[in-house]
């Protein structure tokens, strides 16, 4: 896969299809890949990397990149392609300046997950079939890839690249029984007091670094309300519990019915807050109340929050369903 992708990147650059390639750059260790732009064969040969650590969703970079001269090639994993299409739908990316190479994906791993398993000091990683061989300061270790997967990949919703100019690897299918709402349901089954305690515990860790927002392809505002002093709700740091809640509620609401559930927010959170649960709560509610909807899966369907039917349920439905009392 890695070789095919690199070869494709070189091919597209050299045959003049594009003048830039957006991919992942090798870091200091095997696991710390950085999104990067490549403009030459040499660069690609030396530093382009694709591995189970190519988790970063590249689609958001295209908002800026597609406005630059010439065409850019981008590699999109299935979940990234949903974000890409949602951005297209919102007129944020100039499609004609992007050449999309879809790549089949079996799930991405996370160093955080590996560290969580007590493996530290990892200086090198090698993919070995279904396993990862780790060289650490404290001796060699092995971990199954499946045990190192990102949460979003454990509950992968789709292996289908929804928009591409060409595919590398075989395109997959949507996975309806991803169990991605299991945790949401578990929370819903709690009492409000328990839920409140759960979220306070999580959100009180927030350091308002904006990583979730800045990485989020749906949070593509020219100027975020939380940065805009005129909005009346601008904040630099959460100065109270309320502000912690407010930021995450409003952010989730702003991306509701636009969030593709790409999981980047939770991946990048330095405080390991399961932010995706908020988005999934909205997705689950939308699916249940207004019919199945997957943001980014097509170009035409109106996002549920910009749509209605005359016989929609009343807000009082929340008293009847929702969490147990």
């Amino acid at each position, binding site marked *: 896969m890695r070789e095919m992708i690199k070869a494709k990147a070189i091919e597209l650059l050299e045959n003049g299809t594009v003048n830039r390639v957006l991919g992942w750059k090798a870091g200091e*260790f095997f696991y710390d*890949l950085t999104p990067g732009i490549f403009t030459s064969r040499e660069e690609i040969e030396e530093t382009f990397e694709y591995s189970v650590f190519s988790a970063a969703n590249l689609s958001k970079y295209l908002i800026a990149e597609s406005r630059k001269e010439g065409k850019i090639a981008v590699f999109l994993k299935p979940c990234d392609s949903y974000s890409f299409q949602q951005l297209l739908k919102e007129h944020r990316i100039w499609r004609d300046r992007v050449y999309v190479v879809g790549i089949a994906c079996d799930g991405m791993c996370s160093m955080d997950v590996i*560290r*969580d398993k007590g493996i530290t000091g990892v200086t090198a990683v090698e993919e070995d079939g279904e396993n990862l061989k780790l060289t650490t*300061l404290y001796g060699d270790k092995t971990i199954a890839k499946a045990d190192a997967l990102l949460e979003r990949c454990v509950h992968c919703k789709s292996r289908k690249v929804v928009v591409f100019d060409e595919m590398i690897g075989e395109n997959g299918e949507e996975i309806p029984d991803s169990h991605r709402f299991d945790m949401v349901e578990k929370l819903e089954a709690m009492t409000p007091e328990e839920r409140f305690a759960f979220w306070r515990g999580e959100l009180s860790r927030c350091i308002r*670094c904006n990583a979730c927002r800045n990485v989020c392809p749906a949070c593509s505002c020219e100027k975020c309300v939380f940065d805009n002093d005129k909005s009346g709700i601008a904040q630099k*740091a*959460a100065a109270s519990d309320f502000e912690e809640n407010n930021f995450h509620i409003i952010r989730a609401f702003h991306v509701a019915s636009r969030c593709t559930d790409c999981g980047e927010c939770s991946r990048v959170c*330095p405080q390991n807050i399961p932010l995706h649960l908020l988005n999934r709560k909205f997705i689950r509610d939308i699916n249940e109340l207004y019919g199945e909807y997957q943001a980014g899966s097509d170009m035409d369907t109106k996002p549920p929050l910009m749509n209605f039917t005359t016989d929609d349920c009343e807000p009082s439905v929340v008293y009847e369903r929702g969490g147990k009392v």
Partner: protein
Amino acid sequence: MKKVFAADIYKVFAKVSQKSKLYIPADDGVSQARFLPYMEGMTLTEKLNTGRSAKDLFFPQVENLLKFKVSGKQIEIVDQRDEVESFVIFGVRACDCRSFDILDNVFLYDEPADTFYKTRRANGLVITLACNAPEETCFCTAFGIDPADPAGDITAWKMADAFYFRGNTDKGNALLAELELVEADEEAAHQQQEAIRAIAEKLPFGKLDLTGFDKEHLMEKFKDPRWAELSESCLGCGTCTFVCPTCQCYDIREFNNGKEIQRFRCWDSCMYSDFTMMAHGTNRPTQKERFRQRFMHKLVYYPSNYGGVYGCVGCGRCLQKCPVHTNIVKVAKTLGGENK
């Protein structure tokens, strides 16, 4: 040198916390350690370091400065500071401990001193803990920090059976004396130190070459074209800043609850697009300039102002936390050493 058997460490904590507030690094929810006020039943984390740095305890993320009450054209200024109670932090690593020196330069020694910081520093007692198992992201040694022998008022070593303590300052010795611990042989600690240093020797960035990052090369580094490439993936978030033990930029903001106006300061990040935004624009218009500012500050401006001391302690938090894995090591490797 004093000694406490591993089984008794919590008795020591209990004793300390009776007199003053004690913070220890403990696991907080999932996969993260954090300095938390010690309460009975709490256990020390097994993790190397806390997710957030120890600077929080001296320079908190949000800090109230003063209040105003406004009526008509009149303003009343209310100083609302409470006396800061004395507190003890246990388990500060060598890198974080060094970060206090770096912050001291700005907040204490540069006149006028910041009284909020000053009060906390005066009331805080730092017990450091040597790093038994440094991680691949650690590079404190690059800044001449010895993870085996951290500074602080008291230095502690953790061994299989016991904790060893050494007082470094009067304040530290006084506390140790109060605790009435058993005298111990220094040899055990020395062995531990050697073991740590052996690992530190193997750290991939332990000998990070920082030549070229100095006042003399200020303009050259500033003008280096490679900043563009280094910064191209930067999201402009504040993760690196907020987990950094030495970042000290802050914003002053106000909150009006309708009755009084609370002026407070909170951390800010030079990575944010509005950091230098004025009514008529910003002098750092793209992420390249903002990214450059952060690393120039750590590696060039700070040493230029403070006798060559770098504004980084090699704790490695930004290496672990950056969403796109761009960090000070990549910058140093690209622009420093033989690449300069």
